[in-house]
């Protein structure tokens, strides 16, 4: 809360400075730059439009949602929609808070574990030597293009045979192996000079200690990037809910949101605002995390190349 308040004024000033800068650079730029800027602005607006639209809809009162002709921006913002979808969930068997609880738990545990696993694995590949290293890493590089969607059936069969259907494990375990995580951290780690580790080894530190107190602080940007990717991977994923769980009380937020949308026919139009509100709720954590960590994301992407 405190950070929000302290940031508010500088942000406005920043915005004004940014706009001034924009106008200034437009005046002094070459024609080609101006064309590029105009084009980019159009594209940026197009790509933001649907998101702004969801945000507006989430705060629209009922009469504004169904006014004809449809209005894009909200006039009298209300929180009605947010309370609405909580009640909508009350009508079903499981309260909204249960979906939220499931989602938060699963996301936290999975993201944390996926980061730790990736970090340990990347350290071994980047700084240690062991037989089979090259082959295994090549396998991970190939797995970068693995999309779980392609083998959805056999994945289901495996989850089924592990006897974890309808448990939290069914949400967590399938997301833990993140080849992209290992890959990004490893590439970033390759830049950290090995002499640092050697020095620590001479001082008597063991591998775990080196990893924790020397390497990890040095690769924090990559950890941030993997956090974004792992988080998005789990938070918005619906397959685990639809395929690997049966009871309503084990399902997560994306499933709930999509169950609101799937009824988006004439009979359940009243849910339109509630859906937008729920969608906004899903979107918000993603945005906050990306906004906070975007610098480390771009820093990491510099080393993301495949050689």
């Amino acid at each position, binding site marked *: 809360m405190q950070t929000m308040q302290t940031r508010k004024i500088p942000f406005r000033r920043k915005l004004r400075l940014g706009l001034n800068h924009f106008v200034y650079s437009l005046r002094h730029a070459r024609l080609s730059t101006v064309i590029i800027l105009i084009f980019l602005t159009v594209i940026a607006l197009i790509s933001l439009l649907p998101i702004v639209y969801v945000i507006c809809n989430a705060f629209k009162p009922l009469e504004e949602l169904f006014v004809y002709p449809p209005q894009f921006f909200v006039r009298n913002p209300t929180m009605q929609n947010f309370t609405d979808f909580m009640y909508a969930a009350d009508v079903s068997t499981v309260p909204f808070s249960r979906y939220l609880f499931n989602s938060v738990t699963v996301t936290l545990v999975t993201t944390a574990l996926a980061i730790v696993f990736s970090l340990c694995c990347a350290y071994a590949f980047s700084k*240690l030597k062991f037989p089979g290293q090259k082959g295994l890493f090549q*396998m991970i590089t190939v797995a970068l293009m693995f999309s779980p969607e392609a083998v959805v059936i056999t994945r289901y069969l*495996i989850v089924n045979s592990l006897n974890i259907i309808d448990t939290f494990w069914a949400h967590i375990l399938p997301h833990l192996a993140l080849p992209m995580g290992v890959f990004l951290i490893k590439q970033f780690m390759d830049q950290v000079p090995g002499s640092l580790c050697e020095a620590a080894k001479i001082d008597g530190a063991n591998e775990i200690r080196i990893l924790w107190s020397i390497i990890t602080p040095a690769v924090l940007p990559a950890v941030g990037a993997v956090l974004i990717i792992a988080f998005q991977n789990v938070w918005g994923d619906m397959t685990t809910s639809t395929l690997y769980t049966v009871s309503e009380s084990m399902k997560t937020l994306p499933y709930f949101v999509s169950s609101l949308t799937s009824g988006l026919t004439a009979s359940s139009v009243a849910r339109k605002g509630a859906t937008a509100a729920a969608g906004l709720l899903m979107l918000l954590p993603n945005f906050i995390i990306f906004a906070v960590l975007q610098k480390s994301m771009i820093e990491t992407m510099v080393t993301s190349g495949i050689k």
Partner: protein
Amino acid sequence: MSVQKTQQLPLGGRVKDTWRQMKESWIAYVLIAPFMICFCIFIVGPVLSATVLSFTSYDSIQPPVFTGLNNFIKMFTKDVVLMKFVIPNTLLFAVVVGPIGYALQFGLAWMINKAPRKMKKPYIMAIYAPSIAGGVLISVVWQVFFSSDRLGYLNDILLNLGVINTPVAWTQDKNWLLPIMMLVTLWSSMGVGFLSLFAGMQNVDEQLYEAGKIDGIQSPLLELFYITIPSMKPQMLFSAVMAIVNALKSGSIGVQLSGQNPTPNYAGQLIQSHIEDYGFARFELGYATALSFMLLVVTYILSRVCFRFLGTKEGE
């Protein structure tokens, strides 16, 4: 050092030597173990079992029966829907979302790179944002945008302009579903690959450009081809792989948008939804995994092609 030694040793000695090395580096195996176990179970496992099951007939109740190439023969001879709708749709979709999406990413990254320094961040944020909103959000946003009644934005705009006279059910219309799917996927595809391209471009050595200017490279296009692209090949390869993955991942977008599988008149039926249709609706798991297997093979070949063109050769 040890490499030279192993080359001279006989086979038995080599095995022993490797074993000794493995024992010495046990800590490395402990460190990779958690990831590798999950990796084998949830990534390698499904791929291998899909390979095996694709040669069987399996309905998830009876144990699988080996049927040789039957599934593949059926794929090419009996599955009319696959040949008539799914493959053409998938090819068209993949070409638009893959190469064209990739070119778009590259173009945008290049333009942002040309923008004044302070402007870069907002543009990056704005263009990357949709990929954050992937998954469920796609249907929340776009279903309403393309809504079939007068309240849908697209319908409203077109009705006002007089282009159409009655509201169109965009996502149920067999002529419109596929283009809409492509548009929506392109919208949300500016993700990690796009950031990688941008970061790679940012990181090209300024001195190279200066040297290029001295050597007479003046137009920005020449600069792009002779300096920028060669210096950022690794990032280009990475984002090409991401583009392929993205084209595959979005396979069920048609089902999400239209709300039904199979999609209306199979207009938006991609290989992904076809697999799910056979696997989870008809329980022909053997055939469905055969389709998965083909999909994996095609993906692998495509990525090899990318590696061929963009991979860094020895000594480069």
